[in-house]
């Protein structure tokens, strides 16, 4: 299925950021998505799925883990600890992500690296991203890719 337009724009923004800079996991629970409240479980879920799909498809890499030791424990932790609570502070703010060379090449190919980039949706770029998600076994859908498993009090 095709990712909805508002989510596409948000993913594109996240990936563009990752292609020019590095950032903490918290980047993926930022941005404005129509119909999704700030500091909500829905945004947390989207952030988890976006991180997971981008990691699996080789678009982003982890520079350093914080509060966990490897990708498996990291993926478990981001489902467990809310980015909006103290317990998740180290995980979401200390773990540093950055764009892979693959992402940089895609960003250049589709014109996202242009300094004059505006926030318009780049359909070709996002179609490519969706194809890569599918090829990596993490196709986007309405169902969560990695469903949240909140620790007590983290929901």
């Amino acid at each position, binding site marked *: 299925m095709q990712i909805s337009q508002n989510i596409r724009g948000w993913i594109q*923004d996240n990936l*563009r*950021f*990752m*292609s*020019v*800079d*590095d*950032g*903490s996991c*918290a*980047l993926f629970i*930022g*941005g*404005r998505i129509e119909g999704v409240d*700030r*500091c909500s479980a829905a945004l947390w879920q989207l952030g988890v799925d976006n991180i997971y799909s981008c990691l699996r498809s080789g678009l982003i*890499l982890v*520079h*350093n883990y*914080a509060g966990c030791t490897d990708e498996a424990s990291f993926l478990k932790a981001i489902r467990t600890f*809310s980015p*909006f*609570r*103290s*317990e998740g*502070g*180290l995980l*979401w*703010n*200390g773990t*540093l992500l*950055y*764009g892979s060379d693959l992402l940089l090449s895609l960003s250049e190919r589709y014109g996202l*690296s242009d*300094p004059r*980039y505006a926030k318009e949706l780049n359909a070709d770029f996002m179609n490519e991203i969706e194809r890569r998600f599918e090829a990596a076994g993490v196709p986007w859908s309405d169902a969560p890719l990695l469903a949240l498993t909140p620790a*007590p*009090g983290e929901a």
Partner: protein
Amino acid sequence: MNPVDPFKDYATISGASRQDAWIPGGSGLYDRMASDGLVYTFPPTAFIGAGPLALLGTIDFRYYQLTGRAPDWSEPNPVMFGGGLPAWTSNSSLGPAPERPTVGSPRPSAGDALPTDQGRAGESPASPIVPRSVADIVAPDGVLPGDLVSGSPGGRNMPASPDPNAAALAYVEALFQDNPPLFVRPIDPVSGAFYAQLSDGSFVTYRPAGVSSERTPSDVASVDINGPEIKERNGDKALKLKFPRMRGQ
């Protein structure tokens, strides 16, 4: 001094200075209660540096050095250090610390609201500091510091300086003066990177030059500020301040 005090060698740290601005009454002692329920008391000689950031960071780093594990302080809130309370030194060999009088609020628990809704943890008559929101400190009147980094939705370049780390730390210390952190914890005790949570629920993350990924030049330190209010003023993105080295330095 207790001979098995995990902090017994603090006296060997030199160059300390008092941080009485953080201690109502100027007792000169700092208490922190660890997650094991024990209270640890630190004299000024335990600390290096002159600012509250150095003080808090040093406590956590010393704890890590001496115990081999990251501290998990539960209370008190730093703004309550020494707030009219008797000072004591305690560790496991002394048995549990005596029950402490009211010392701020406990760490967030299951039923708490999200950080954005949390009241100020240290509010009490003994607390001398009324923190401003991080957004008001960093971006008064909505004006963000530094210059926009091309292509980086959340990033802004701060003025270049001969010492990016010192410039970034000075910025964080100034921020903490107006909004004392609830805690400061190392991300990586070797690199010096740390993060802090402030009383309005915001997180501040400091990374010295050379510890970020290849997407950040190795001579750039960074300070990330992540919280609902600052995000509102920065296009819904966490704010990333970059502190570059002055060319030719």
